[in-house]
């Protein structure tokens, strides 16, 4: 049974939600000099409160509920739910946001719109906290949309760059596609269960198996936000935003929301829906992995690696491994934020994002090099780093799942996931080599001027690098089974595959070796273009959706001009003609009638007046004539 929240907890939740949103409003008006400090202070307070919440979290979920609206018998509540998962996400979001904001202080030092930047960051964080704390799907959806809004504002932060505006629009629209599905899913949920409260929806014995359509609709939300196939193309474009924003977006806020949603609604997913989710996750992993291989933009490689890792998490969700996916989300948050912030340091030093114009930077940027190496190793899944632990947890469970499926085809999923970790190593080592090894290839900024950033930027990077080591998650560097994480979030106990770790390490080493030794192919080769343009997905969208819609728009435009405009003009002309006719009628017939009448009457008046001319003799004449006429008539 869920518990009612204690006063302390209620106050904490209220504070957690109030701080960022109040911060958003205040920071919009704050001068740029103190905006950063204020934002960091707010997030620090939030982090402290989150730790308090985490220490007070109980075995059972705790609820804060209030009724919002009652409509003809159906009542909709606002509720917040605090459990271990919430506490974990609260700390993660605050922590990454804090580091990112510290980093931004230095990275965006010269930015004139700094106050607005930090305000948007606060909005982003606040919206994400709302998702994490939400206790029913309605509240979750509200904050879900706020995340979309904040991401739009931040991706398009450089308003003077047209590409940034395009990317922001693209991200927003693609998210809308997913969100529509999510909204329909919420409607379906209410239709089937008559409630939107997560706590009653996910109760263990809630009765019938929910329909597959419901699960898939809810999953649509995750597809949009977490950039799953086929809605993944907004994520690389989102690199137009400032680099710290990318770090936050990829690690803790935006894309994590989709995974978190899946974790929340996992009991609502029918077996068929889970199979679809697994397949989508696997496709995304491979698609993102391959797309990362030949990218030349340092941030795009990382963006596609995020796509790939998110696919891995989604696939883990599909195989029923919620805790494994959340574990990977946690470890991934640290090393991916670390990678992005390091990439930011590199960009800061050489003023370009193109890896073809980097190289040999390990001597110029030693701290960044070390941090980058550690984070990349964690991402590739080398033992002694955090990524290895979470990947093994996911892959082991995936093999366990496919052995339970009694279907040979299902072994394809874990094998492909395993393969993708080799690909991960391949493209990360390629990037590592291109950036830090070989000859320096930049003509604009000489190597002697490329220098480390200040400690405000190096600090967060180093902290994140340190957190990417195995030690923080499990004492055993080769297995996560004894980890504190799985004590908090118990996983289903599967058998251990003794061969999994060696095979995986072998694949990673092979991939890494290939990545280090490979020679850059010509950029016009078809397989390179397939990777750089991420499987021509955008081109396909262009042909399938954009072009027909454009053509339709042109057609409608023509129709508008030819038919509607003409009709309007015709109506106008006929009205004017009619008006002329009416005016003529008015002038000649009605006026003519009136004037004619007046003329007749005036003639008549003149005639009658002429009789009365005041001359006595004419009167007498008239009298005599009249008398004669009467006589003539009488006789």
């Amino acid at each position: 049974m869920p518990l009612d929240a204690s006063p302390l907890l209620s106050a904490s939740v209220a504070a957690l939600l109030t701080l960022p949103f109040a911060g958003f409003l205040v920071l919009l008006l704050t001068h740029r000099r103190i905006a950063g400090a204020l934002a960091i202070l707010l997030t620090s307070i939030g982090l402290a409160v989150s730790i308090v919440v985490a220490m007070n979290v109980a075995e059972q979920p705790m609820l804060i509920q209030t009724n919002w609206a009652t409509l003809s018998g159906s009542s909709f509540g606002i509720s917040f739910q605090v459990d271990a998962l919430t506490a974990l996400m609260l700390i993660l979001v605050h922590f990454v946001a804090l580091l990112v904001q510290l980093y931004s202080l230095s990275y965006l030092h010269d930015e004139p719109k700094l106050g607005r930047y930090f305000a948007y960051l606060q909005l982003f964080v606040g919206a994400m906290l709302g998702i994490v704390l939400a206790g029913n799907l309605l509240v979750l959806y509200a904050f879900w949309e706020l995340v979309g809004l904040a991401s739009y504002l931040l991706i398009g932060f450089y308003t003077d760059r047209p590409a940034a505006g395009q990317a922001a629009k693209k991200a927003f629209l693609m998210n809308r596609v997913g969100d529509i599905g999510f909204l329909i899913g919420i409607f379906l949920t209410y239709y089937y269960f008559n409630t939107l409260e997560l706590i009653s929806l996910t109760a263990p014995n809630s009765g019938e198996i929910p329909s597959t359509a419901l699960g898939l609709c809810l999953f649509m939300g995750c597809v949009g936000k977490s950039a799953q196939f086929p809605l993944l193309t907004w994520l690389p474009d989102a690199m137009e935003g400032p680099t710290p924003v990318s770090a936050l977006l990829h690690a803790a806020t935006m894309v994590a929301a989709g995974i978190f949603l899946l974790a929340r609604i996992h009991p609502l997913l029918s077996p068929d829906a889970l199979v679809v989710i697994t397949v989508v996750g696997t496709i995304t992993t491979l698609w993102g992995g391959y797309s990362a291989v030949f990218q030349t933009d340092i941030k795009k490689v990382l963006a596609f690696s995020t796509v790939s890792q998110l696919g891995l998490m989604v696939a883990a969700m599909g195989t029923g491994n919620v805790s494994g996916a959340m574990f990977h989300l946690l470890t991934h948050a640290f090393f991916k934020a670390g990678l992005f912030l390091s990439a930011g340091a590199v960009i800061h030093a050489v003023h370009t994002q193109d890896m073809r114009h980097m190289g040999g930077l390990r001597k110029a940027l030693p701290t960044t090099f070390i941090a980058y190496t550690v984070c990349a190793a964690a991402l590739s899944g080398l033992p002694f780093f955090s990524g290895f632990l979470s990947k093994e947890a996911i892959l082991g469970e995936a093999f366990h799942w496919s052995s339970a499926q009694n279907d040979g085809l299902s072994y394809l999923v874990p094998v492909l996931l395993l393969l993708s970790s080799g690909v991960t190593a391949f493209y990360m080592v390629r990037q590592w080599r291109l950036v830090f090894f070989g000859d320096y290839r930049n003509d604009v900024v000489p190597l002697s001027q490329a220098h480390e950033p200040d400690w405000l930027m190096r600090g967060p990077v180093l902290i994140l690098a340190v957190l990417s080591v195995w030690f923080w998650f499990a004492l055993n560097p080769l297995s996560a089974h004894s980890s504190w994480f799985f004590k908090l979030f118990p996983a289903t106990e599967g058998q251990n595959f003794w061969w999994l770790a060696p095979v995986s390490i072998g694949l990673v080493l092979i991939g890494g070796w290939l990545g280090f030794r490979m020679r850059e192919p010509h950029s016009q080769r078809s397989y390179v273009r397939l990777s750089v343009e991420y499987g021509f997905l955008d081109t396909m969208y262009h042909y399938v959706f954009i072009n027909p819609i454009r053509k339709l728009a042109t057609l409608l435009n023509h129709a508008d001009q030819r038919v509607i405009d003409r009709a309007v003009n015709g109506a106008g002309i006929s009205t004017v003609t009619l008006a002329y006719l009416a005016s003529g009628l008015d002038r000649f017939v009605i006026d003519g009638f009136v004037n004619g009448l007046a003329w007749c009457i005036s003639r008549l008046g003149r005639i009658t007046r002429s009789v009365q001319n005041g001359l006595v003799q004419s009167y007498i004449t008239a009298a005599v004539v009249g008398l004669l006429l009467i006589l003539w008539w009488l006789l």
Partner: protein
Amino acid sequence: MQPVDSHLFLFVGAALFSIGLAVVVVKRHAIVVLMGIELMLNAVNINLVAFSQYDPDRLQGQMLALFVMVVAAAESAVALAIVLQVYRHFRTAQLDELNELKQ
């Protein structure tokens, strides 16, 4: 004395009346018009006298003719006075120039 045919009186009376009427209608000067009126009155008197022969006892026609003369004398006096006043007022006695009756 051989009585004259009464219809001859009627011819003379009608002729006199017509001449008087023509004078009244056609002439411009107020005094001439008055004279026309006198002619018409006297044409009537002739008729009255002529028909009086058919009433030998009471002679109503002759009596009425006398009465008419008296009244005509009075009427002429009044009319001449009016004409005099009109002439004084308008400095003319031409009927064409007097259209005060219009008002």
